[in-house]
């Protein structure tokens, strides 16, 4: 439940706008689009911008500087550089367009079909794609040139075919991911034909990555074509690559000849790539995440606002004491959005406190703040967190880390993603013991087995040898609890520790947490949305709503006689006491009872 909320904070956009507007707001996009457009227009309508033939030689006017007749001067046999530049771009751009069209049509269509239908289509097309990728492109092009002669367009068409596997693989993998989304299944249930689903959902999903890839391919095609012409393998007419080759011979005597074709080639290629990136950002309606200005310290400076917003007076015995905590995230307009607003709470030694609230209440953000796990973009903008008398707000990452390993442990919501799939459980449990606590290999292993026993895992030796995918969710959560205990914490922060588990497993894990808490005298801060889970394990409860504390107190009192309107509503919406559905009445109005 935490991840989506946090993600929303980072990506939500308040105002509606179109892809075009978003594109126009990006200065790099506008500049690169203008460059591509201007070059394309100059090249396509070359005859409007110059009246001189690109091949007309005039030896008496060789190697002239810019003049009215020749805006960019002339080359070594007196040809007009401006005219050659414009006319030379034609073949270059036509070749790039051909490469693009062929690779998009062939690679895009085969990728779409392979990704959506899977099965034999996928097998055959992937095999063909691998085969084509294994071919050395340049060698094939050189051989082809020997067979068909110096026709650059045929060579570029084959080049398009040769790089179509790149497009194929991109489209295939994107489509495969999207085809598994529930909205595609919903479309199938809605009776849409495969063609409709491909066009409506899958083509749309591949659009953004495809555009950026297409720009890359276009840039590459311009480059390859210039290279072939530079090597003298292209057609005999004027090209940018050919101009580069001619000027290369005179690089010592007339280096300026190289400038113009190189400039046009470079500008064109770079602009295509920049434009591709900008287009991708603009096409995603969620937009790019807001940029973080500068790096922020993990925990910001101490800023005690002083006003007593606390609902609860806390004595000296509190060993975790949070006062007026405020946590902010940047919003897309450069402002800040407070997700935790002046929260005060405390945990006494050996006490279990529940942090209860719905999504968006800020409960996980408070847990992150205490455990030093706030994401980089978040900022503690006010308040204090004292753990055993020590101020945690304002500590450097390294200092905070030391305090945390010496007393606070964290148990996350979803156990499986929190274990590294490529290492055994044993390695993941012993590594911190060896690195942080300096245990020997044997001692760490012994300790890990002991911890797995403590979390009631029956065959610890076997679990130590297992990889995360080989154990169940409940087992994985026990492993994470064992890992949390390995640093001998005095405070355990558990963030929805049982939400991802089945109810029967949840009951076992709650029993385990309760007994560990009692035998080790652990204090616990339990984040949960489930009032039943809080009732099961907590001594005290803090109810949160929209980033602020609405009520706090002994759990029996709060549940029996909630003071806040919000808590009353929350308790009333639980279904445990709700009436069951009345008996079924058939459409004819007759009550039907089951035997």
């Amino acid at each position, binding site marked *: *439940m935490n991840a*989506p909320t946090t993600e*929303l904070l980072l990506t939500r*956009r308040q105002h*509606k706008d179109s892809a075009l507007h978003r594109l126009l707001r990006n200065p790099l996009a506008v500049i690169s689009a203008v460059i591509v457009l201007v070059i394309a227009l100059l090249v396509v309508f070359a005859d409007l911008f110059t009246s001189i033939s690109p091949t007309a030689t005039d030896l008496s006017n060789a190697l002239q500087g810019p003049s009215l007749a020749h805006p960019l001067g002339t080359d070594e046999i007196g040809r007009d550089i401006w005219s050659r530049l414009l006319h030379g771009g034609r073949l270059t751009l036509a070749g790039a367009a051909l490469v693009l069209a062929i690779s998009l049509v062939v690679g895009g269509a085969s990728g779409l079909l392979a990704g959506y239908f899977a099965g034999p289509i996928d097998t055959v097309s992937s095999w063909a794609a691998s085969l084509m990728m294994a071919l050395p492109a340049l060698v094939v092009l050189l051989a082809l040139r020997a067979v068909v002669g110096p026709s650059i367009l045929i060579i570029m068409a084959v080049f398009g075919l040769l790089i179509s596997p790149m497009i194929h693989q991109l489209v295939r993998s994107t489509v495969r991911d999207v085809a598994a*989304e*529930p*909205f595609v*299944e*919903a*479309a*199938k*249930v*809605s*009776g*849409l*034909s495969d063609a*409709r689903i491909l066009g409506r*959902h899958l083509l*749309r999903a591949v659009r953004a990555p495809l555009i950026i890839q297409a720009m890359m391919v276009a840039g590459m095609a311009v480059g390859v074509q210039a290279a072939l012409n530079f090597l003298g393998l292209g057609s005999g007419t004027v090209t940018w690559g050919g101009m580069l080759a001619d000027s290369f011979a005179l690089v010592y005597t007339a280096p300026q000849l190289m400038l113009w074709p190189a400039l046009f080639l470079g500008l064109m290629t770079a602009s295509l790539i920049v434009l591709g990136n900008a287009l991708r950002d603009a096409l995603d*309606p*969620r937009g790019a995440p807001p940029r973080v200005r500068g790096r922020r310290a993990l925990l910001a400076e101490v800023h005690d606002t002083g006003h007593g917003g606390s609902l609860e007076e806390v004595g000296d015995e509190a060993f975790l004491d949070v006062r007026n905590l405020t946590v902010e995230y940047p919003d897309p307009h450069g402002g800040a959005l407070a997700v935790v607003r002046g929260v005060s709470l405390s945990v006494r030694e050996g006490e279990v406190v529940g942090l209860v609230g*719905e*999504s968006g209440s800020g409960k996980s953000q408070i847990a992150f703040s205490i455990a030093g796990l706030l994401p980089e973009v978040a900022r503690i903008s006010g308040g204090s967190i004292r753990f055993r008398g020590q101020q945690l707000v304002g500590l450097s990452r390294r200092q905070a880390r030391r305090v945390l390993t010496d007393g606070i442990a964290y148990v996350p919501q979803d156990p499986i993603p929190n274990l590294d799939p490529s290492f055994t459980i044993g390695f993941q449990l012993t590594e911190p013991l060896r690195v942080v606590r300096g245990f020997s290999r044997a001692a760490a292993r012994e300790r890990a087995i002991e911890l797995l026993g403590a979390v009631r895992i029956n065959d610890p030796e076997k679990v130590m040898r297992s990889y995360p995918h080989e154990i169940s969710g409940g087992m994985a959560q026990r492993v994470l609890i064992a890992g949390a205990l390995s640093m001998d914490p005095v405070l355990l922060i558990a963030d929805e520790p049982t939400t991802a588990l*089945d*109810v*029967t497993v*949840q*009951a076992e894990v*709650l*029993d385990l947490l309760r007994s560990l808490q009692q035998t080790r005298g652990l204090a616990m801060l339990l984040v949960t*949305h*489930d*009032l*039943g889970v*809080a*009732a*099961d394990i907590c001594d005290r409860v803090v109810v949160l709503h929209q980033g602020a504390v609405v009520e706090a107190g002994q*759990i*029996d009192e709060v*549940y029996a006689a909630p003071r806040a309107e919000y808590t009353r*509503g*929350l*308790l009333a*919406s*639980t*279904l*445990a*006491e*709700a009436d*069951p*559905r009345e*008996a*079924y*009445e*058939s*459409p004819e109005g007759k009550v*039907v*009872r*089951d035997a």
Partner: protein
Amino acid sequence: MRDIESRKEPLLEVHDLRVEFRGRAGRKRFTALERVSLDVRAGEAVGLVGESGSGKSTLGRAILGLVEPSSGSIRLGGREITNLRTRDRRALASELQVVFQDPYGSLNPGLRVGDILAEPLIASRDSAAQARAEVLDALERVHLPADAIDRYPHEFSGGQRQRVAIARAIIRRPRLIICDEALSALDLTTQSHIIDLLLELQAETGVAYLFISHDLSVVRRLCHRVAVLRRGEMVEFGEGAAVTSRPTDPYTQALLDAAPVPDPAVQRARRAARLDAA
């Protein structure tokens, strides 16, 4: 309203269903469902409860034609719909719809709500004006404002997205909606609002629900009858009130006892009982 074909015949009838998944090369087959029989009457809500791996979602997907049963039969309105041809399966969209769990994944983030809701109408070949009227009507029935039509899914909260998903399911006025953990990703208060909405829509249109959930208390509130699945087999099927408070099967009883209730005194008593049993 549609006429009811046969008074004796239930709307949905699943008989002796078996679903097997082919293991990857070298691995053995996995039986997700075995000997499962179930029926849903017109206008009825039937709950399907179980833990992860119980096969409850597989049963829903088999009815929707998203997985292929190995044997057994599924009948809708008296007609066999197991292993339908693609064309016939598409035609079923007017009678059978779905609401999925994930209110984020079940709506295409790149489409406006209006386009998402119009999707089932594409197959019914409505005119654009007609489709728009239908979409506005569906939005009203799920209590979303008409201007939602031009907005994208990410502009809505989880509960509102689930209303959009429900609007998409009801727009063709189906006779049966499969709700696959449709409330599980929602907050408590949002959950109870969506339950009210589902009850309201059922009273208005007489649609039947097959409501798949891991949560007995949700099912108790919403469903006339409840079936409990465990490891692909049905352990209990009966009146909702009875199954969710006085179950005959020990597994159902265990599920019931494991679900924590928001009453510290009850939880303390249960914990003591669990420790005694251990």
